[in-house]
């Protein structure tokens, strides 16, 4: 299974991202996959942030992010 071909500019961005984040000796296949997955991640994260915004939580109120549910005591 090969990642789809990408524009050269996408691959340059992916290469820079890989270098900044410790992905050494990235192959062209690695970079094609990274470019594709960065798009996928961005799309998913955008939907989460949009959905979270609906809750309109005040940013200045401290919230603890728990495990799915607290253990019973």
């Amino acid at each position, binding site marked *: *299974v090969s990642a789809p071909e990408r524009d050269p500019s996408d691959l340059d961005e992916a290469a820079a*991202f890989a270098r900044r*984040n*410790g*992905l*050494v000796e990235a192959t062209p296949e*690695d970079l094609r*996959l*990274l470019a594709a*997955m*960065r798009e*996928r*991640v961005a799309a*998913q*994260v955008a*939907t*989460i*942030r949009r*959905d*979270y915004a609906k*809750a309109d*939580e005040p940013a200045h109120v401290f*919230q603890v*992010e*728990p*495990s*799915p*549910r607290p*253990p*019973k*005591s």
Partner: protein
Amino acid sequence: VEAVSKRADDAESRADVPLYHLTVAEAGRRVARRELSPVDLLDACLGRIAAVDGIVHSYITVTVERARAAAREAEAEIAGGRLRGPLHGIPFAVKDNYHVAGVRTTGASRLMLDHVADTTATAVAQLEAAGAILLGKLNTWELGTGSGMVTDDLPFPIARNPWDTERLTGGSSTGPAAAVAAGTALFALGSDTGGSIRLPAAACGLIGLKPTYGLVSRAGCLPNCWSLDHNGPLAWTIEDAALVLSAIAGHDGSDPTSADAPSANLLRDLRAGVGGLTIGVVRDFGPDGEALDAAQREAFERMVGTLEGLGAHLVPARLPASLTEYRHTARVINWAESYSAHEEDFLERRHLMGASLREKMMCGFALRAADYLAALRRRRILSRATDEAISPYDAVVLPGAFHVAPRLDEPDTIPAYTIDNACSAFNLTGHPAICVPTGFADGLPLNAQVVGPYYGEAMLLRVAQAYESATPWREVRPRLGGNDLGGKQ
């Protein structure tokens, strides 16, 4: 459906059922009465493995000598009047992401082919303490995870669905589902991060139980996503699942997320029926629901009618968000936590990973910390809202997998099996969920889910047992080729 019902009516008597197709409960009763030797039962399963595992590929490692020693010990103990309980002498197997000291844990990965564990997972230790006999380690998607894409690039053959060996078992607990359906183990343990117990159970016509988050210890297992991972059983019947969960539920100080919850008796009211219970019915999934197969929808409606006929009060219920919303939130958490667990391997040895795992790792690599935390915030809100939606009911029923098991030679259809379902919502929120068979379409199993409030496993099992007792789906086993003797179709 009518044909299956007729076959069930024509089913042979229990005395004719091969030993490897006994339920856990029935085998346990025979062992307790000393009508069945644990050694003979083990031999039946080993014979079954020899006969059909070359077709279904449920096992990665069979621990023959270890199992024989345990079976002989069980036989001697029982002969001496020291019966440990209903699982004493019962053969089982675990997904190859549970460690067993002295046995290799591969996770079906080239990264771990030579890894021999020096610890035993708490759940395995609990089952062995109850007298169950470990048969071996079962097939899985790589490291119990992946992107949903199935590629034949792992060091072991892909597990095959015993109902149609050209089809997917579901994943990631591929081997556990294939084993229980084929009779190469009487029950199995799997792990469920986004449906990985329930989707294989659905594809292979089994009970798949994902307990409340924290109810069953994950200590001694390969990590996937610490806040989404759940361990639980795959079994042929609800009673079997209840027996196994009874043995593995409970607080474990070795797992920091283990719930310090009092143990519920899962068997006491198992057959109390559903008369007078209020059961929510989730039918409306908005645009996501369009993917639900007509056969699955019809079988689900028959299930609702059956429960109503048994005296339950069925009322419409809704989840507070779309399945897509749950899935996207769970996926981002999954990418981040899984990447964190496997970062070193990804950065240094990703060439050894299969394509599916490598793709998932790349998503985790591309994610930012703030994105992960946004997903955790979204989960907090979704979990609270879901609990408020579920809590008014004794249980809630809804579809599980939206499709029947896809063909392995049609890889483009496989991701849809993993995506189009109502399973991952309850990994995100931590609510308990049971996948139950609801019939057949063209010889392939259909399914639905019973979910409920946190720690509501006893009630969910009771509802599922009432439905199971009223339907013939447990009377039919898959027929395998070769020298198979177990099918009744």
